[in-house]
Each structure stands twice: as structure tokens, then as C-alpha cells.
């Protein structure tokens, strides 16, 4: 092992490195700050931006540290005057075709380009941008693309193709007219884009942002004739604090509930409640499929990016997809079709808002299947980022609010429902309840290690009451692609597959605070696991409010009312792909 270590010199200091590493990897480990624009952790370097240049003794030019391998004895200067001047020059060049829009830009304060300009001391404009503005693509219900703010780093293109296996976008055109776009310059709405928002998280600037519905929600809140109900997804309470500058991994559930009430929502419900409900419905569906020789493996249906992905790329798997609506849509349906009646409000006078870690949820709530008599189950979806904006707008400081409890009856949840926020969580909750359904006994060890953590593919083979069950968990659609190809190729040992669109699950959703790197995602996950560890009720089938909902309204899982309100069917979708 020791012989595998080489020594190099960084800014006059000797440090150790492993052969095959890039200079950037070594510098990052040594806590030497190197700015990058096009570098994506975990993917091969592209060398597009040259922001990461350093001075290498003996080399005729500055070298890009993200793609340059270390060699024993090399001497590097990471912030010599020459390096700093070159970096500043790169930023000035980028800004020469960039609009002076920071005051009006949704990304201001979280923008890498802005930070670079500030940190490298860019204090004046060298040349005026071209007068004509390029058209923004506002065709998508989830994603807005502003080509004027694009620095052509290519991260979105690579994430979309290499991580998500979608490839909806690429560089189009050449020279000064190059921009990122879809085939035939069509809008994202008719492309193969699945609305996951991973490109937003990758983008260093405001060129990609979510489509905001903050104004619509404010308008609804101001309307005295509307009852405005809000639900929040399991993964939001463990990330919202980051919007207020706090380190990742803090749970602010109660404070967030208090804040939502202050903003003016009439009821605050918890999507984890309908996650528990989903487990009852989906668990029963799986048992039914196994008993009756139905189509297997069953695939989860909570992640709307994944659903669109199946409809476009794997329509032959549509019969495998669970007919359960997602927890968001189940909540929307029971709020308008059950709660509203009980409260004696007409469904059309209820405005149903959800706070989601997800941009694809904005697309999902507008789907034709997701409503009743032309009244949508859910009206507006705000991302965690937009909730941050809404709270800042109201001057609400989370830390000065006393935690409050969510409203009954749909505010009660078990920690199994809360686990939905991490990849593997749906499966873990399902296994806990399946064990109880099949054996009548609770699982002794509720924590299921193999289903936890950041890995993109996780599997569990277990024997429950003599039944051999094969379960797989994938997150990131590229991983889903690989697993589905195995199943297409004849793999038969799997009964149930959980798919989350975003790598790591909702804690890393496309609507989450900017700065979603692996360490951050791990911290967010850990917060969910802690909630689960400390919770009094950790299995969905012991959610008392869910039981009452079945007694008072739904009847039984897969019953007639469930079928009408909580289940749906998906169809093949033809897009340019």
C-alpha cells in the first residue's frame, strides 16, 4: 500500500497522492480550493471550462487539474498570480456574453458564476452583451431554460444522458450560436425530458430553474373564498434548513408546520400519511399479484419522472407498474373527495398545494389521470427551494418559531412513511408491512441495512413465511435502465422493484436546495434514519388515522373507493427520443 503513494508539491507544501488520481482530486482532499464549472463528481472529466487550471512547473501552459493525472514529484501552484489572472480572464469572457441580471435572477446568491466573479475580483464589464435576447423555453410545467445565462459547461447534457439515461438535451448549433436544447429545437414539454430537475442541480448558473408557482399560491392564499390546504413530502423537512444557510441533515418538521400556518395555509397535512396509505394499497396489490399469478416484478409508481420514463422508453413494462397513485396524488384525492365533503366545502373551492423535493411533481399534478371531473387532485406544487423563497418573502425565521404539530387527520404519520424520502425507503416500509401481513407478526429487526444508503442499486432476498421474496431498489434512471434490461433479458428472481428517479431518492430530488453533493445527500438520509430510529410508531399498518380512513371511508385496500380515487393506469407515450 505504501509503495502506491507518490509525493507531489502543492504551493510549496509536500502532499501525498495516489497514482491515477487527478490533480483536482488531490487538491480537494488537501482542502485546497479549486473552482470548477464543468466538473461533475463521479463522471469522467470533460475539460470544457478550464476554470480549474493550475500552474505545473515545467509545463508550457497552465493545465486543467480536473483531467490532469498526478505524477511523482510534480510541483503545482494552485493560486499563483498567473493562475488567478487566467481564471479571472475566463470569468470575464463568460460574462462578456452574459446578461447583467443578477438582481432579477432566481439563482442569485447560489450561482457559481456570480460567486466566481465576486471572488476573483471582477469589478467591471469588459464588453456589452449582444442586444438581442434568446428565447427562454417555458414550455415545460417543471423546467425553465434560459439560454442567455448558459455558460455551455455541458453538465446538464451529461447528467441527462449519463446519469439519467434520458438524453433529452444536447448542444445544438455551433460557434456563437451554440445552445443547449432538444432535438429540432422543440420545447422540453414535447421532448423526452422526464422533468426530474437533475440538470437544475448540476447547472452552475440560472440557465436552468424550476417553473415557479409561488405567485399562483400567493394568489390562492389571498382569496377569501378558497380553502388552501398544504401537504409536505417526507424529504422536505430534512432539507428546508439548508435554504436558510444551515448545514444539511437537520429536521425542521415542526417549525416548518408552524411557518406554513403563518403563511396562511388553512390546513397542514403530511404526505408521509399517504405514504403509509400507499404501503397498505401497494402491499395489498403485490400480495394480490403474487397470489393470482399477476404480472411481476411489480414496479413502484411514486416517482413521476420514472413513470414518464417507462411510458416513453419501456412501455412493455407498463403492466408491471403498480396502479397506485403517488402519495402526493393520493393526498390530493382524499383531501378533495373526502375531507372537503366532511368539512362541507366544495372540491372546487379547495386549493391543494404540495411542497415537494421534486420538479416532476409539477408535471404529475397536471396529468389528465390525476383528477376527477376536471378538478385536479393537486393544484400547485412548490419545490423545497420555492418554499424557502415563500418563507423568506414573509420574513419568517424558522428558528424563532415554536414547532407545531400537523393537522389531523392527515398529519399523522409513521416513520415508515417518512422513509419514502430516501432511496430504499419505500421498500423498507413495504417489507415491514408485508412481513406483518404474511405472518401476523412484526419484523424483529425493523432496520433493513441492505436497503439503506447511497448505492444506486440495492437488493434484498428474503424468506418471509416460506415465501422467497426478491426485492431490488434502484435510483437514478440510468440504473433503472440497466435493471429493466436485465429483466427483459430474462431475470426472474425479483418480485418487487423500487425505482426513484433521482440518484439517492427524494432527498436528492431536483427541487431540493442547490448544493446536492454526495456528502449532503448522505446527511439528509441520515436525518431520516434518525427520525425512524426514534419514532414511536415505525410501521405503516399501525397508523391509526390510516386505519380510521379505511373504516370511515375507503372500506378496504384495493376496494371500490380506493380503486376510483387512489389508483390509475398509465399509457405508452410517444415523444421525440
Amino acid at each position, binding site marked *: 500500500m505504501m509503495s502506491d503513494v507518490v509525493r507531489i508539491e502543492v504551493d510549496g507544501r509536500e502532499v501525498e497522492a495516489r497514482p491515477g488520481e487527478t490533480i483536482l482530486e488531490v487538491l480537494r482532499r488537501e482542502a485546497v480550493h479549486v473552482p470548477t464549472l464543468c466538473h461533475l463528481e463521479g463522471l469522467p472529466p470533460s475539460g470544457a471550462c478550464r476554470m480549474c487550471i493550475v500552474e505545473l512547473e515545467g509545463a508550457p501552459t497552465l493545465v486543467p487539474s480536473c483531467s490532469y493525472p498526478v505524477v511523482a514529484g510534480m510541483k503545482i501552484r494552485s493560486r499563483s498570480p498567473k493562475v488567478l489572472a487566467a481564471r479571472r480572464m475566463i470569468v470575464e469572457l463568460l460574462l462578456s456574453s452574459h446578461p447583467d441580471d443578477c438582481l432579477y435572477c432566481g439563482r442569485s446568491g447560489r450561482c457559481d458564476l456570480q460567486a466566481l466573479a465576486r471572488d476573483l475580483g471582477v469589478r467591471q464589464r469588459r464588453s456589452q452583451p449582444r442586444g438581442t435576447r434568446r428565447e427562454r423555453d417555458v414550455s415545460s410545467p417543471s423546467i425553465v431554460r434560459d439560454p442567455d445565462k448558459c455558460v455551455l459547461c455541458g453538465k446538464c447534457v451529461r447528467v441527462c444522458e449519463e446519469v439519467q439515461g434520458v*438524453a433529452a438535451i444536447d448542444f445544438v448549433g*455551433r460557434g456563437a450560436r451554440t445552445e443547449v436544447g432538444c432535438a*429540432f429545437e422543440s420545447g422540453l414539454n414535447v421532448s423526452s425530458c422526464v422533468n426530474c430537475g437533475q440538470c437544475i442541480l448540476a447547472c452552475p448558473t440560472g440557465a436552468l430553474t424550476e417553473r415557479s408557482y409561488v405567485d399562483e399560491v400567493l394568489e390562492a392564499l389571498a382569496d377569501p373564498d378558497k380553502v388552501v390546504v398544504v401537504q409536505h413530502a417526507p424529504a422536505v423537512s430534512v432539507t428546508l434548513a439548508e435554504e436558510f444557510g444551515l448545514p444539511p441533515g437537520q429536521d425542521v418538521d415542526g417549525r416548518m408546520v408552524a411557518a406554513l400556518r403563518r403563511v396562511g395555509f388553512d390546513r397542514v397535512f403530511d404526505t408521509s400519511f399517504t405514504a403509509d396509505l400507499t404501503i397498505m394499497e401497494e402491499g395489498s396489490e403485490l400480495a394480490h399479484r403474487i397470489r393470482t399469478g399477476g404480472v411481476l416484478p411489480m414496479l413502484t409508481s411514486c416517482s413521476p419522472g420514472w413513470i414518464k420514463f417507462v411510458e416513453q422508453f419501456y412501455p412493455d413494462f407498463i403492466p408491471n407498474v403498480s396502479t397506485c397513485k403517488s402519495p402526493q396524488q393520493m393526498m390530493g384525492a382524499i383531501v378533495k373527495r373526502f375531507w372537503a365533503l366532511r368539512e362541507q366545502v366544495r372540491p372546487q373551492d379547495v386549493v391543494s398545494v404540495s411542497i415537494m423535493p421534486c420538479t416532476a411533481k409539477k408535471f404529475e399534478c397536471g396529468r389528465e389521470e390525476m383528477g376527477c371531473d376536471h378538478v385536479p387532485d393537486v393544484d400547485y406544487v412548490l419545490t423545497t427551494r420555492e418554499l424557502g423563497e415563500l418563507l423568506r418573502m414573509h420574513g419568517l425565521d424558522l428558528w424563532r418559531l415554536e414547532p407545531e404539530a400537523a393537522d389531523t387527520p392527515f398529519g399523522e404519520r409513521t416513520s415508515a412513511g417518512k422513509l419514502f424520502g430516501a432511496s430504499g425507503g419505500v421498500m423498507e416500509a413495504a417489507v415491514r408491512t408485508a412481513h406483518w401481513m404474511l405472518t401476523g407478526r412484526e419484523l424483529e429487526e425493523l432496520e433493513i441495512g441492505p436497503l439503506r444508503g447511497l448505492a444506486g442499486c440495492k437488493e434484498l432476498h428474503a424468506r418471509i413465511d416460506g415465501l422467497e421474496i426478491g426485492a431490488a431498489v434502484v435510483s437514478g434512471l440510468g440504473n433503472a435502465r440497466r435493471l429493466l434490461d436485465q429483466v427483459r433479458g430474462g431475470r426472474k428472481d425479483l418480485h418487487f422493484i423500487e425505482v426513484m428517479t433521482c440518484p439517492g431518492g427524494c432527498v436528492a430530488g431536483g427541487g431540493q436546495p442547490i448544493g446536492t453533493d454526495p456528502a449532503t445527500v448522505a446527511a439528509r438520509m441520515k436525518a431520516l434514519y434518525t427520525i425512524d430510529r426514534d419514532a414511536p410508531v415505525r410501521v405503516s399498518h399501525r397508523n391509526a388515522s390510516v386505519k380510521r380512513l379505511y373504516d370511515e371511508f375507503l372500506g378496504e385496500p384495493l376496494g371500490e373507493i380506493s380503486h376510483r380515487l387512489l389508483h390509475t393506469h398509465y399509457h405508452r407515450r410517444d415523444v421525440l427520443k
Partner: protein
Amino acid sequence: MSSANGIDSILRRHANAGRESLIPILQEVQERQGYLSREAVVEIGRHLGLPASKIYGVATFYNQFRFQPRGRHHFMVCRGTACHVKGSGKALEMLTRMLKLKPGQTSRDGMFSLEVVACMGACGLAPVVNLNGEFHAKVTPRRLAAIIAECRRMEEAEHVQA
């Protein structure tokens, strides 16, 4: 559809082809069909295992590909050096404005299309514009306006007859 658009035989000739065959295939398809249709791009993508966005990206990198069928009156503006010096930029600007088209586009009604090409080998006539194969030498804005008006008159006449 697949046999009707006639790119099957092209793809068959490029059986087991990889990415490196993309440009030749695009060229052959454009030669056959006059442009690269969405259907063609999707089919080529399926053949080569490439997403449509990638193919479109590669194709737009080169000036030679168009993505809309030519109009009934197809204008080609020469951007060769000689024409450029003699003011082909003005001619292009004029056509862009009058036809409300950008280079590579075809009007919705299919009447006009506009294309920019490298030297057409008629430098003596600079600046030169080619309309449906016919060269118009030393064009001026006034000449172009007259040519376009003539195209419209022809269309109307055909309309009346039909």
C-alpha cells in the same frame, strides 16, 4: 411509413454501423429526401442507438443539413468571399426580413425557404442569389423585392387556375 420514406435501404447499407457512420448516413438521407425529417432522425437514432437530441446536435454543427422540406421557391444566398465583399450580407438580411425566415427555415405554407451556402462558383456574378436553380446576378434589395413579388404572383395565378 418506413419503406415509403425510403431510408430503409440507406440504413440497410449501413448495417452494424456505429457512430462514425452518422454523418454519411445523414448526408445520404438528405440527398434522398431533400431534408432530415423528424421521422428520419428518429429512425437513424434507433438504427445507431443514438438519442434524437444527439443526432440533431451533430447535424446542426454542420451547415449542410436542413430539417424542413424546401419551399416551392427555394432561395440560396451565397456567403462566399466574393459575394460577401459585394454585399451578400445585405441580401441575406433583406431576404430574412421579407420572407420572415431564418436560414434553414421554410415558411409554414411551404411557399418559401431560405438557405445559406458556401461559394456557388459564380463569383463573377457576385452577389449572387439562386432561386430554384436559377442564378440571379448582382442582386440589389430592389431586385430581390421584385423577384419575391414575382413568386407571389405565380402562386396566385396557379391558385386561380386551380
